[in-house]
């Protein structure tokens, strides 16, 4: 049985969908729109080569990785760029570990540290850890229609229904034809805009439309944005479950 998984460890925040639909617009309810998005980006396993480009003012740092994910809860990314070669991120459920080859040791990221930017990027560890739980945490309403990059979109508003959420509200622009969230705004409880994400490129893989290039910018960090590019995306390939273990990190 297929499960809806986080698209990739770094793109969870960009592409995640959420909530249970309650309101109708343009013939589709929020629920239905999310289900169509789900169907588009669901997979049992995924493998891809990722590139993380972190822009800060005039400088840009590029990090490359090979990533594998299984189900909603397991993901492993190994960095391949020379500076970070061998550094690995392992996500199991809501836990995150980083393995450092230089010390051959692992560090667990927990608590409020999860709100920090990963590798100096605009994506927090918590963003990366987000999974299908989002559906249980937000109520979704269709608040209208708009266009993003010339494409007609449903505008969804996601309001938190529980306290334990990173963003109190989210506004999502979902492509009406391809059912991909082209843009997302994430707000704090005060209404302050915290992050903005945009999908820059969508690729058709089989009968699905898959976002392969996205950008997220932390609105609290001036002049900062992070682009994530996925290449050689392989869906539903055989992956051994044993690779998602602490024991395997040091190998």
């Amino acid at each position, binding site marked *: 049985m297929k499960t809806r998984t986080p698209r990739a460890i770094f793109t969870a925040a960009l592409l995640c969908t959420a909530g249970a639909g309650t309101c109708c617009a343009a013939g589709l309810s929020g629920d239905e729109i999310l289900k169509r998005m789900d169907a588009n980006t669901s997979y049992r396993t995924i493998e891809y080569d990722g590139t993380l480009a972190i822009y800060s003012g005039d400088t840009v740092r590029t990090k490359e990785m090979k990533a594998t994910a299984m189900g909603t809860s397991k993901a492993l990314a190994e960095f391949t760029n020379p500076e970070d070669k061998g550094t690995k991120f392992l996500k199991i459920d809501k836990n995150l570990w*980083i393995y450092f080859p230089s010390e051959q*040791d692992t*560090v667990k990221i927990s*608590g409020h*540290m999860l709100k920090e930017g990963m590798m100096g990027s605009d994506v927090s560890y918590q963003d990366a850890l987000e999974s299908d739980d989002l559906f249980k945490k937000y109520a979704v309403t269709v608040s209208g229609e708009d266009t993003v990059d010339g494409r007609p979109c449903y505008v969804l508003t996601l309001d938190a229904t529980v306290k334990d959420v990173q963003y109190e509200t989210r506004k999502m622009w979902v492509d009406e034809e391809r059912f991909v969230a082209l843009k997302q705004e994430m707000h704090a409880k005060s209404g302050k805009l915290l992050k903005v994400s945009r999908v820059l490129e969508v690729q058709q893989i089989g009968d699905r439309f898959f976002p392969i290039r996205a950008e997220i910018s932390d609105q609290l960090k001036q002049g900062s944005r992070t682009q994530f590019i996925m290449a050689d995306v392989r869906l539903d390939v055989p992956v051994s479950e044993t690779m998602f273990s602490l024991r395997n990190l040091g190998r």
Partner: protein
Amino acid sequence: MRNIWRNRRRSLLAMLSVALASLLCLVLQGLLGGFQESLVKNFTKNETGHIRVTTKDFADRAELLPVDAMIHHPDQIESAIRTSPAIADKVRIMTERISFGVLLENKGLNKTAVALAGDPKTEESLLYLQRSILPGGHYIDGPSQTIIGAGLAEDLKLSVGDALKVVSEASDGSLQLKKFRIVGIFRTGVTTLDGKIFQVPLGDAKTFLRTEGGSQSIIIMLDDYHEAARVAALISALLEDPTLAVTPWTEIGDYARLIQIETKIFNALDLIVMFLGAFIITNIMTMVVLERRKEIGILKSMGFARGEVLVLFLWEGVFLGIWGSLIGGGLGFLLNVILHFRGVDFSSYFTSLEFPVDNIIYWTVDAPVAAGIVILGCVISGVVSIIPSLRAARMNAVDAIKSI
């Protein structure tokens, strides 16, 4: 004098009011002085030095503690400063330092902290952390050793002998981990130091952060920190490097500016307190003028000029002010001397402060400031006596006599 003691209770009340205002001003100035000295001392020795040499790129982003904006040949800069006759004599301590934000981990517990990396020997005369090491530990005497704040140790459940896992972004943007052995835990009483800081050797930090010998800053402490701006200009002229920023502590961040603004605000408050204290003289002198209308009339009919009557009453007000200020100033000075040696423990109030300030504040004793407050008290007493004195001086002799 006879007039002043006619109504002793009233005159004593006026003096007491001025005395209290003077005492309050002086004690507040002593507290402010002590608080500021603590702030400046901690701010400069822990963070900026009296003068800081960095790259301009670092100076622009200093609050982020960037590790990718290094001075590539810090030894050459130090050598140039040490061999300059105009500057070398004024420099007490000069050392390289790197401060960087890190993530610490121990058994699944995380905490953000700031690493202070410097030459352990030199930092003994700068950070003084060796003085605050708790029993069972010692100061850094080798590579890969660290001393950490007691607050950090408690939060991460770490003890002497444990390994401290430090994660940080290196100068090339990579994420790095290094394990340091904890050889000591310090408790300075400064909340921000104990809860956020750990010290490591400079060499380890350079390797860990992949700086290739570069340093983030050169910290310079002067014999007299009031000379910081002038000496910074001299160093800047000496180095003639447009990529470098030579900055006196007074120009680093909002913190230094805040300290200077705070002084101005307190001085304005002093003036207000003195005015309020002396204002009672206006009331008392107004009553005195009303009570002595007949006398004023007689004096005027005897040929006293307006000016003479004015001076008579003005002097009365000033006299009350002089004695009040002298008594208040004297008591305030004495209190400041006592508090200078004993200090007051503010630890319960400072716990949540992010400023690097000592928990015990020792009042400053400043004779010129005390003299200034006494003079201020006298002057303000004179000023507030002007209106009732003018009223007396302008009285018509016949009307004054008739009014009784």
